[in-house]
């Protein structure tokens, strides 16, 4: 036919709806752009959505069977997709599949059989590498730590534990004392007991890795009741938009990280800047974590299809993406032999600090270097 | 058959049964009467294991203290309740069936159920939902279920209440037949003296949980103390 079907399995209901939206906005934008200038190989792209709900195994599998098996889509663009479950589900098929849940679990599944999983591509680096990057930046901050004690608090999910474990080892290697490591369930609101211990420890760094606004906001507010001289590092937990939206200037000083990030407020290149403006114009707000990655996924696939000249030749398309990569707004996207978009090069991890109520890129990594002339500001609570 | 000695039950400060002793012989119909709240039903609840108690209860020589109700039932002690109990989601026949199963699936035999239904002539309501029966029906089903457990002794709690003279006569017939044809020892609680005097071989009158008289019914109900605290003058006259 004269349309190319594109599968979009995202959480449209339930607790993951918000991230689902972020990815959808990026994907939709890319598809509309491609269709606007004549489509792909002269064919219009037709997105077909599937609600992954809470990523229960059978749901993930059903997504694959529905989109690729039944609807015969020629590429699948997901965001958070199943932390490895997705690799198995979509690996059965050949259509290129882009996921963004940056989990080592997914990569491990891939490694079992790179041939079979040749169609799987990760848009972000793994929890391990992201955590490493967070550590590097913390160490690179222009700030004299009063002591070498760190407190690590993470949620009890795959992402949280992944980051937590990595940081723990990193800090220990660097001769730091991990004075407290707490794994907390979602829904924690009363931090009193932990605060009590923190106030005794007086750590130089607290890292919180719970990707859920209520938890991190209550944590921050209760910390601020009687703050210690501590750098608060929120890692990826800074991402939920509510954090800055709810707290505004109150959140000034928090630092965090975003993978495959489009640095803000000023993008690295004019094209990137233009993209940010386009996005903001369409959706009425700044792009969020994931939007750009998902967008680029679609574009990367489209480029490959054009190069191959046949969207049905999945093998060739996959090979092209894997070997050639794609030139995006900030420069080249290169997937490594594990089909992971490793952080670095033209698409580094972005490290932010909340300044004046907005997230500001202060570092990119690797290599660890300050971003443009944005400066790290010593948090107001540190004497 | 059933020997109760120094039975005592306290609910808080209230002494419901007070150092009570009595003995029911095999094949007997034994009557218990006494003012409201004297402790009659409580005695049943103790014998059938619904409450713990002080004192001793021997059934065929085995002490039943501390046994669960269903265990006691399986010993061969069966009872009816003062306020008719039913299984609203079962039919009359099924309800009797429950007793017939006697706690294990093997024991069931349809023949016995039919026999009991015939015995109580419940044929017409055998497939009625139990709680849609009238009072008499409910009582009969309850007795039927109790009989289905093949009891050695059957405790009846005010079976006559709410029946008219005519029905009372039928019920008395029924009880006699249960006692004679089925050879079941019976204890009966009643407030109708005529019933007790006609039916029972031995009558126990209690008040405030303690015995005030026991012996041959005819004499017992002439006992001034009994008349004074229980029967009342008028009743004594017109009975």
């Amino acid at each position, binding site marked *: 036919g004269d349309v190319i079907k594109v599968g979009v399995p995202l959480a449209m209901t339930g607790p993951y709806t918000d991230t689902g939206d972020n990815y959808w906005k990026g994907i939709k934008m890319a598809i509309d752009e491609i269709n606007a200038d004549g489509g792909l190989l002269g064919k219009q792209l037709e997105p077909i959505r599937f609600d992954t709900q809470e990523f229960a195994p059978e749901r993930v599998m059903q997504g694959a069977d529905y989109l690729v098996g039944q609807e015969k889509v020629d590429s699948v663009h997901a965001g958070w997709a199943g932390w490895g479950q997705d690799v198995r589900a979509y690996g059965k098929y050949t259509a290129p599949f882009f996921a963004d849940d940056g989990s080592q679990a997914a990569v491990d599944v891939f490694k079992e059989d790179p041939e079979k999983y040749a169609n799987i591509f990760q848009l972000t680096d793994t929890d391990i590498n992201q955590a490493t990057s967070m550590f590097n930046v913390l160490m690179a901050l222009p700030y004299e730590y009063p002591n070498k004690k760190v407190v690590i608090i993470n949620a009890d999910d795959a992402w949280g534990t992944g980051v937590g474990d990595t940081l723990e080892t990193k800090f220990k290697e660097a001769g730091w004392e991990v004075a407290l490591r707490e794994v907390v369930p979602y829904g924690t609101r009363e931090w009193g*007991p*932990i605060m009590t211990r923190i106030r*005794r420890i007086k750590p130089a760094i607290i890292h919180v890795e719970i990707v859920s606004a209520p938890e991190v906001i209550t944590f921050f507010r209760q910390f601020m*009741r009687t703050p210690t001289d501590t750098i608060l590092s929120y890692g990826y937990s800074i991402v*939920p938009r509510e954090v800055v939206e709810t707290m505004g200037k109150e959140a000034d000083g928090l630092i965090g990280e975003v993978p495959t990030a489009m640095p803000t407020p000023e993008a690295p290149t004019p094209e990137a800047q233009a993209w940010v403006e386009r996005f903001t114009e369409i959706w009425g707000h700044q792009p969020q974590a994931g939007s750009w990655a998902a967008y680029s996924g679609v574009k990367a696939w489209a480029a490959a299809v054009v190069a191959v000249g046949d969207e049905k030749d999945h093998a060739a398309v996959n090979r092209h993406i894997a070997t050639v990569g794609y030139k995006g707004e900030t420069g080249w996207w290169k997937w490594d032999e594990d089909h992971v978009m490793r952080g670095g090069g033209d698409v580094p991890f972005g490290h932010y600090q909340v300044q004046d109520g907005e997230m500001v890129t202060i570092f990119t990594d690797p290599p660890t270097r300050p971003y443009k002339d944005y400066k790290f500001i010593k948090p107001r609570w540190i004497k | 058959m059933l020997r109760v000695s120094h039975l005592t039950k306290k609910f808080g400060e209230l002494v419901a049964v007070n150092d009570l002793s009595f003995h029911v012989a095999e094949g007997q119909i034994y009557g218990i009467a006494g003012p409201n709240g004297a402790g009659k039903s409580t005695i049943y609840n103790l014998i059938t294991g619904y409450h713990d108690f002080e004192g001793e209860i021997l059934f065929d020589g085995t002490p039943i203290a501390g046994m669960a109700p269903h265990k006691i039932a399986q010993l061969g002690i069966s009872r009816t309740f003062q306020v008719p109990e039913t299984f*609203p989601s079962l039919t009359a026949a099924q309800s009797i069936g429950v007793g017939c199963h006697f706690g294990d699936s093997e024991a069931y035999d349809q023949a016995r159920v039919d026999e009991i239904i015939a015995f109580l002539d419940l044929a017409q309501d055998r497939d009625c939902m139990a709680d849609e029966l009238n009072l008499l029906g409910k009582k009969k089903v309850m007795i039927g279920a109790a009989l289905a457990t093949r009891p050695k002794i059957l405790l009846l709690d005010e079976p006559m209440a709410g029946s008219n003279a005519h029905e009372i006569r039928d019920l008395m017939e029924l009880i006699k037949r249960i006692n004679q044809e089925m050879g079941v020892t019976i204890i009966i609680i009643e407030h109708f003296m005529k019933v007790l005097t006609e039916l029972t071989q031995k009558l126990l009158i209690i008040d405030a949980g303690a015995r005030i008289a026991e012996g041959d019914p005819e004499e017992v109900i002439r006992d001034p103390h009994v008349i004074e605290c229980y029967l009342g003058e008028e009743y004594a006259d017109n009975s």
Partner: protein
Amino acid sequence: MYIEEYLDVFISGLTNGSVYALMAVGLTLVYGVSRAFNFAYGSFYSLGGYFAWVLMVYLGLSGGYLMVLLMAVPFLIGFGYVTEKVIVAPLRKRSDWEVKVMMITLGLALFLDNGYQVLFGPRMKSLPPIMTGAVELGPIYIANQDIMIFVLAISGILAFRWLLNNTRIGMAVRAVAQNPIGAKIVGIPKNRIFAATFGISTVMVGLGGILLAQKYFISPMGGWDILVKSWVITAFGGMGSIRGGLLAAFILGMLEAYVGYVFGMTWVLFALFGVLLATLAIRPQGLMGKWG
């Protein structure tokens, strides 16, 4: 270890406790009294929150919290009352109404929660602080907010308990719960009482939603957490026993605080249910329950 730390943890225990108490009152009422398990309880909690949010943030109404509460009470009562009349009452005639009520309220919860999602979007909403500042006694720090919640929870529950035990209405409510027919016979307007009960409980949990917005915020699915916690507390305290509920709330609050402090947060849930089981093993009717 350090005495003041234990004090500090004690304070968080109290805070937990009062928050839980505030959550659970409403459930103790409907479930403990009218014996209808309301799965939509959590959704009513969110309802209160969103109502306040619409007034204060979306419409930017001035007049602050007092104003909001004044408008919320009638709204919530009405909502609860009508809900009962329309979807719960018709089921009451059935012998298996308890299960049916569970089911229908579950459907309602599904409807409301996803309704919020569609209407207000998936992101959590927050309300301006009711009060700021804190009381500081040496090392001990107590936020005024928490004090307020504490006071409101306790007074609310006690008032409510007094109402149930000492007023004619209260007695009527219990009577209806225990024996609907008996209630009819003595002339209690059974249906109205049931609906009213539902209404009152809706108000309670709804207001809870507003007061707790500072800690628990308002999000489409946020209600479930509340439902489960309240349920644990109600059962633990003993159905129908307000005093038990109150006690349970604080015991669990303390437990959470101290277990979290000594062993770490991951153990809280295990400890919580451990204690629950132990209690039920000894007292099947809950701490102070009158019936099951």
